[in-house]
């Protein structure tokens, strides 16, 4: 019977749609797996430790950009990349040489990151500056500070442990001590009301306010959280490059945002998550390694990023589109 066949097809489509709605990173995940296989085939001696370490700053930048976007209201944080650079520079120029290259130094940079994020949040909430403008301002300010302090690059001295973050710790790739931290924090946040409030605020702030949620506080905390994650990214970056230079301050800004979008997080807020951004970052990273293994020039790389982003977002939109709008 043709009718029941249509029905079955409709049901399968409906189930797929729900799956993609629930796991909005599904497409990026499929892409990442395919790229990983391609990489492994092309480069049989794929160096996991090194690749993970080079992935880490991008992955953390992407995850750091996510909470502010989820918080909605046009939420956006452009200052993540220069903030990571600032953490890197402060650690290399001030903390490590003065014997603060250990736990205390880590705590200091984490507080610094959260603080900068909080300032972003307060600018947006209290001064009512649109997020893109507010964080663009802090972006320029931070880049200026970065260049001021680190006008010439400097090698890291006085801290040896941090390079293990890009190497191995007891045979475990060091990156596995940085990348999962935001995920762990994100998971712990799901055990308290904050995280679901963040999503609710991002989904509809008017509803949340009228229901008694302190929308301002939730949003400021989202930026602070992004700043905290950026600080972890700064540490991963320090481990990777073992030096600091002001000129790299803006390198992760837009790729991080691309990773978030690729990972299925809605730029309108309320949908998506940290894990998706990680997958998005992995996809972009693997795309880059694959293409460079084919000696494709880096200018084409940018074109491919753009196309991949468009394809992923359009595909996501197509799959999750409702067949009939509800009355």
């Amino acid at each position, binding site marked *: 019977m043709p009718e029941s066949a249509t029905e079955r097809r409709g049901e399968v489509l409906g189930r797929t749609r729900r799956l993609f709605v629930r796991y909005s990173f599904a497409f990026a995940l499929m892409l990442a797996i395919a790229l990983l296989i391609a990489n492994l085939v092309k480069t049989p001696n794929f160096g996991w430790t090194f690749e993970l370490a080079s992935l880490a700053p991008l992955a953390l930048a992407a995850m750091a950009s996510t909470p502010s976007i989820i918080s909605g209201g046009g939420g956006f944080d452009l200052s993540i990349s220069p903030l990571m650079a600032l953490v890197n520079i402060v650690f290399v120029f001030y903390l490590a040489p003065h014997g603060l290259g250990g736990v205390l130094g880590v705590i200091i940079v984490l507080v610094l990151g959260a603080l900068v994020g909080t300032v972003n949040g307060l600018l947006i909430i209290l001064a009512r500056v649109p997020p893109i403008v507010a964080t663009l301002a802090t972006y320029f300010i931070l880049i200026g500070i970065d260049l001021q302090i680190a006008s010439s690059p400097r090698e890291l001295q006085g801290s040896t442990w941090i390079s293990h973050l890009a190497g191995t710790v007891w045979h475990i790739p060091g990156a596995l001590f940085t990348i999962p931290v935001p995920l762990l924090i994100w998971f712990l946040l799901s055990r308290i009301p904050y995280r679901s409030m963040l999503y609710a605020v991002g989904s509809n702030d008017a509803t949340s306010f009228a229901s008694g949620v302190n929308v301002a506080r939730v949003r400021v905390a989202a930026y602070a959280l992004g700043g905290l994650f950026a600080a972890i990214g700064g540490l991963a970056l320090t481990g990777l490059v073992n030096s600091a230079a002001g000129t790299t301050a803006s390198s992760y800004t837009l790729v991080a945002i691309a990773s978030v979008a690729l990972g299925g997080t809605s730029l309108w807020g309320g949908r998506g998550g940290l894990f998706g951004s990680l997958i998005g970052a992995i996809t972009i990273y693997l795309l880059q390694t694959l293409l460079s293994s084919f000696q494709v020039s880096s200018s084409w790389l940018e074109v491919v990023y753009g196309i991949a982003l468009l394809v992923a977002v359009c595909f996501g939109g197509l799959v999750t589109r409702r067949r009939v709008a*509800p009355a």
Partner: protein
Amino acid sequence: MALMRGGRIATPAGPADAAVDAHIPLVRVTNVAKAFGATQALRDASFELRPGEVHSLIGENGSGKSTLVKILSGVHALDRGTVELGDVEVNAPRTPREAQESGIATVFQEVLVAEARSVLDNIWLGVDGLLRKRVPGSDKRARAAELLAELLDRPLNVDTIIEELSLSDRQACCIVRALVRDPRVLILDEATSALDVATRDRLFEIVRRLSKQGVGVIFITHRLDEINELGDRVTVMRSGNTVAVLDRGTWTSRELVHLMTGTDRLVQHAREESKPLEQRLGDAVLSGNGLRLHPERAAFDVTIRAGELVGVAGLEGHGQDLFLNALRGGGAVDGVVVAHSDGDEIVVGSPSEAAAQGIAFVPRERRQALFAWMSIRENFAMPTLDRDNRMGWLSMRATRVRFSHWAKRMEVVFGKDGDRITTLSGGNQQKVLIARWLAADPRVLLLNDPTRGIDIGAKGDFYTLLAQLVDEGVAVVMLSSELDEHVDLMDRVLVFREQALFRQVEHESLSRAELVAAFFGQDAASVVEA
């Protein structure tokens, strides 16, 4: 006073402690005023809510009901006056959170949901602190499921993402959101307008039960029958003032209308204003051939003739919206829509083809059709700007002239035509939107619930306008969720049921009972007057 204790949300309000303070009003509002910019929304409003009563608050749009409710809910701050909750005088709650902590829970006119979140999250939204849960997860689940089942008369999976639900079910979730807070004061601001009939009846049952337990209910609706059914007292508002407080049994519908508007013009007169049907009925202008709205439902034919006023009715979600959408060229599962023009038959395959055939469509959601940041004049003129072309330049003067013509005809109340559209009341916004499409001289006007949420005065003007339009030979197809509009206004009503045309009822045999019977798939004889 128990009312002011924080964190009482999780503990059910017992009937016993309600009885204790039965003589002290739950809410007393005295001489409250509130202005938004130049608009004085509340001038001098006084209002009292006793424990255990259902107190209706009625008035036209712009009379200040919603503003009053929003002050009590902590959304707006008041300019002058006092608000007492129990025997504690406070300057009204400063945030929605404070209002809730004082035991006030509100269901707002807008269906407020966080679309991407689950039903459960939506219902308990705002109860917890940022870091600490105030109600354990298992209790949340149980309470939400229990109240939803009671309200909907069927279980609803609380993990469903709320945007998957119908409008009616979403509003049910908003109501449950208020109920789980175990309020002392429950405010229902137009909460019933998005509900289907059966859910509304069950809501009324819950409201009656709560008021027996001593909960005070502030009930706002545009439907007088609901006030007659539920209200213990009525406070009537007009232009920001409270003009009367009436006890049950001392009001009549006509009197309430009179108090609200200052006139007692009712719907019935509108149809009498137009010529008899035989004189205005013209040739067929639009027909649907073999229309099918759902793959498994029957196809049907429909013909709309010039000069007739056709109602589209049915229980919510039974295909009325799909039908209207098909007529405007939005497509159906099967069948074609054909426009008739001077003997020619033109298939209407897209909304732009429909527009070219003089078919104008006014959607249900006013907000979708408004350019909120633009002026009244621009909102009016947007699709017909080419008419204001003077030698290749846009003439603002020409637009002005055109707008003032329609503004006069439709009695739009406005300051300057350059003011933002959002400075108008809902009814006046709707008039501007309808004028927008009338300015294109349509042959067919499709309206989707145009009077939803507009006040009685504006409705009266609107009915008069419809009468004039059909006299001029325009065919009007109007989806309405108000039975009275169908009974009093329409030449013919198409009743939809289960995504198909179920019955056509001619004006002579229109009655509330006939329509409700058709909604439920029965003959009028078997159903009592609704």
